[in-house]
């Protein structure tokens, strides 16, 4: 579907927030199409900042971020919208319109694909409805299509969130702490969904996680951040407890893992 698309490149990226907090420091990073990357680091390490820079929700203070060789525009407008159209995002708090049906929520992922007046009047073209339905199929909740989002469990809501991102037919999916509000069983289901979608569709996927065992279990490549700086970049197969200690700057505790048996 998106075979050779979805590359990301940061060049000397810096982000400093108005209150002086450093969210990103001298970041040079390249992500190839189709990679499944897990980003770890303690809270405030700049994981969200990194993801949100890719779709322009956070602006660069200096340096650039490119998607498929095009620099992400740093001001609102048509060009930024065209970029965002190709980048799906999944949030910790799902961000669904609770009073609307699952289908209506997934169709929001098609907003940038249809003429404005059609979306406004809720006159979605057949093709876009089909894309939305296929996205629901992909996460296995087609039977919930006409149910109100508020009636779903947390795991189901996050699946709708994933379906909305898939409905964009994106080259990249950014998942910002997608399992932080879910229970352990659902967490594994959602992580498996994300991995499966990455394999099946070749969508470049970046996932922020704060559970180390999850990062190790599901990541292909792990990126470690500390105070906005890249401190680790390697394959998940080779990452050691020592590496995690370096990333976190401390010994880790049961708070850092989902399954307590994972502490070595």
């Amino acid at each position, binding site marked *: 579907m998106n075979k050779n698309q979805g590359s990301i490149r940061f060049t000397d990226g810096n982000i400093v927030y108005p209150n002086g907090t450093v969210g990103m420091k001298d970041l040079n990073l390249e992500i190839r199409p189709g990679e499944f990357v897990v980003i770890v680091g303690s809270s405030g390490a700049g994981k969200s900042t990194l993801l949100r820079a890719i779709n322009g929700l956070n602006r660069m203070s200096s340096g650039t971020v490119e998607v498929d060789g095009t620099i992400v525009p740093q001001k609102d407008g048509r060009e930024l919208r065209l970029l*965002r*159209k190709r980048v799906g995002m999944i*949030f910790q708090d799902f*961000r669904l*319109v609770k009073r609307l049906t699952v289908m209506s929520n997934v169709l*929001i992922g098609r*907003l940038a694909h249809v003429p404005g007046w059609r979306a*406004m009047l809720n006159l979605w073209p057949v093709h876009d409805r089909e894309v939305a339905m296929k996205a629901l199929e992909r996460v296995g909740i087609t039977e919930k299509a006409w149910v109100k989002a508020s009636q779903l469990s947390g795991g189901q809501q996050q699946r709708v969130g994933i379906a*909305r991102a898939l409905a964009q037919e994106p080259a990249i999916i950014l998942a910002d702490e997608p399992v932080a509000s879910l229970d352990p069983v659902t967490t594994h289901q959602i992580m498996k969904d994300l991995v499966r979608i990455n394999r099946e569709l070749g969508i470049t996927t970046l996932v922020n996680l704060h559970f180390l065992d999850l990062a190790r279990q599901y990541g292909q490549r792990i990126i470690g951040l500390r105070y906005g700086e890249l401190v680790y970049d390697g394959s998940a197969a080779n990452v050691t407890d020592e590496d995690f200690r370096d990333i976190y700057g401390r010994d880790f505790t049961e708070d850092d893992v989902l399954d307590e048996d994972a502490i070595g």
Partner: protein
Amino acid sequence: MSAAPPKPARNWPLLIGTLGFLVAMTWWSGHGIGFSLSELLCNLTGGQRLLRESWPPDFAFLPRLYGPFMETIYIAIIGTVVGGILAIPVAVLAARNLTLGKVVWFADRNFMNILRTLPDLFWAMMFAAAVGFGPVAGALALSVFTIAVISKLWSESLEAIDMGMPEAVRAVGGTWLQMIQFGAIPQGLQHYVSYALYAFELNVRASMVLGLVGAGGIGMILETQRANFEYERVTMIILAVLVAVLIIEQISESIRKRLA
């Protein structure tokens, strides 16, 4: 178990000071408008006469109220619908978290303030001068009044919404308008309906007053009967409006409860 702390002493100086201040303010204001209790008591007989002449209500007059009364309802409906629709952009642009830049926000806020500062009676007289006396002037005046009421209340609830959903709409590549439609308005919808119903209640009541300046409806007939000293009919009108307003309030409250 530790003993409860002693009850703090009452702040008597503050209490007496506040009370004294209120009394002084009231006396001063009464003096300012020439209020005198003795004069009031002497003139009470006039009021008694008025009350006697106002009773019993003239029930024979009731059928003639139907037409003007329906006109009042029409005026209130048109005012609420037209004003309610126009209030949407005014409220959205006045909400700090949704507006299109500081300049637009500032202009819109001031526009809202002007609408709110001028009373509905003023708008009724303006529109009566513009389009002639009658229900159309009343409906236009209430439209403006409704914009003022809904936009003020709703812009404040819009400022309190969770900005997560609007951000999600921006993240899929949505425009500003789509962010408003799909991200913000669904969260504010309940409040909007509730405020619109409230505005409708206000409009039914206001359209009575508007009739006094010739803007149609039941107020117009109230003013004619008062001018002709037909106080038993005036009582009838007031009773009818009271019942109508109570019924409308009940309906609107039950709808609002169901929304919550």
